């Protein structure tokens, strides 16, 4: 039992070590030549446009559900006019980044791992090497850049859509005036809140890129292995996003309390 625990711990440390080394290589490969511009643009399109519908859909319904819950609760205290403030805070700081991060992790991380993993199992990565092409630079770097650009953009879209969802509930169900709701939202658009709302998706993008590419590049065991890597990739990326979200919230609270 103890031996098994020790072995699991050793494997965990080994994996973390390998992931860290791989992540370093990925970041370094974004600099220097050749730069794969067309691949990066293609990935931006696939990640950004491909995830847009999903993010908009989840954003609007999550925003409405939240507004409904908050407005009912606030009504008990006669504070319905604060709905905009709470929505603005909750969505920009937490809900937007988390929702967009998890949606992209589910949709994009699985795709990246499956694509790179099946290339690995059919020797295509070795073929790239034999043609003098660095697979990390060719495949991983464009995906990293595309994610770092597109996840914050998707998050901002998610924020806007969720606030609009809340606005619909505020107007038609909670009977708050549009001006009251929007000015309350605007009041909480402070530097600290917006900074936290943009910092988080950037970090989540790195997490999704590192984990999904690493899992793809280390896939073993043919098609079954590709399936296993894909599942693990989504699972690890999602859990990591939730854990890192908590840590980032704590860190930002510690350092930027005055700006929040």
């Amino acid at each position, binding site marked *: 039992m103890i031996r098994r625990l020790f072995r699991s711990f050793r494997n965990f440390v080994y994996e973390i070590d390998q992931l860290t080394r791989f992540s370093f290589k990925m970041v370094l490969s974004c600099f220097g030549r050749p730069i794969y511009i067309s691949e990066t643009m293609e990935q931006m399109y696939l990640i950004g446009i491909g995830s847009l519908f999903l993010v908009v859909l989840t954003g609007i319904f999550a925003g409405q559900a939240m507004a409904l819950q908050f407005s009912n609760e606030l009504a008990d205290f006669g504070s319905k006019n604060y709905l905009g403030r709470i929505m603005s805070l909750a969505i920009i700081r937490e809900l937007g980044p988390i929702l967009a991060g998890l949606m992209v992790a589910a949709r994009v991380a699985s795709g990246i791992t499956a694509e790179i993993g099946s290339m690995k199992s059919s020797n*295509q990565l070795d073929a790239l090497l034999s*043609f003098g092409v660095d697979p990390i630079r060719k495949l991983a770097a464009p995906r990293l850049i595309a994610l770092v650009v597109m996840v914050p953009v998707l998050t901002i879209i998610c924020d806007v859509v969720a606030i609009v969802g809340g606005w619909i509930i505020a107007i038609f169900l909670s009977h708050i005036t549009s001006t009251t709701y929007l000015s309350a939202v605007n009041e909480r658009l402070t530097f600290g809140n917006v900074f936290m709302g943009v910092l988080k998706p950037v970090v989540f993008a790195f997490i999704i890129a590192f984990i999904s590419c690493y899992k793809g590049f280390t896939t073993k065991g043919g098609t079954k292995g590709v399936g296993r890597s894909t599942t693990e990739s989504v699972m690890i990326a999602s859990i990591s996003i939730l854990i890192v979200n908590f840590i980032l919230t704590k860190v930002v609270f510690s350092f930027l309390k005055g700006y929040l």
Partner: protein
Amino acid sequence: MIRLDKVNFGYNTEQVLHDVSFHIKPGESRIIMGGSGSGKSTILRLILGLDCPWSGEVYIDGENICGQKLKHLQEIRKQIGMVFQEGALFDSMTIAENVGYYLFEHTKKKESEIEQEARRMLEFVDLDPGIMDKLPEELSGGMRRRVAIARALLSTRPKIMLFDEPTTGLDPQATKNVMNLIRKLRKEENIAVIIVTHQIADALKLADKFVVIQKGRIVFDGDMDELRGSENPEVIKFLAPFRESISDVVKRNFV
């Protein structure tokens, strides 16, 4: 040209190759035979510099390729063309993009020029250039294997070609086509060829020399006559099912 000197290698902690040594001269052909998991494909990976041995050296043109910087290693690799198991074609690219991949990646040639070269190379491997716009999944196994050969040839004008199980999974006609193509490469281009296979009957017709590898150790290295006369029990056991094929080849060469 290629020299492996007391190479030991493995994956994780499991040793796959034990003290492997052999030497290939320019223009020579060598078949590496052995059962599944005996370490045949690993030898090709080491020659291409995709892996580095635990101990021992791999020399290409007198230069030890291990520990070289990636840029220099790429220069060395330019002399070598590799046809991977099942071709390893890039499945999201068309046949034209696959064949011209090296030129797209490393030269500033126009797309039309690269397509022209890809067309010429497809004709060289006896394929209809009409397949240029198709995806690899639309081709048969034998055609994919020939596209992979065309891709390797167009890449760097190699002096050495490495074939990893070039005929595995192919029907007899496709096998014959690939074998003829390898023969044509040797005859017309004077390219040194290393073929890794466990399909002995086909391979015997292609090479000057043979290496038999069992459980990661070389148990035989020599020509056809030496192979026939070998008294090494491991060689005898390995070749027992193919005795008839060996006799056929010898007879044909003699006649």
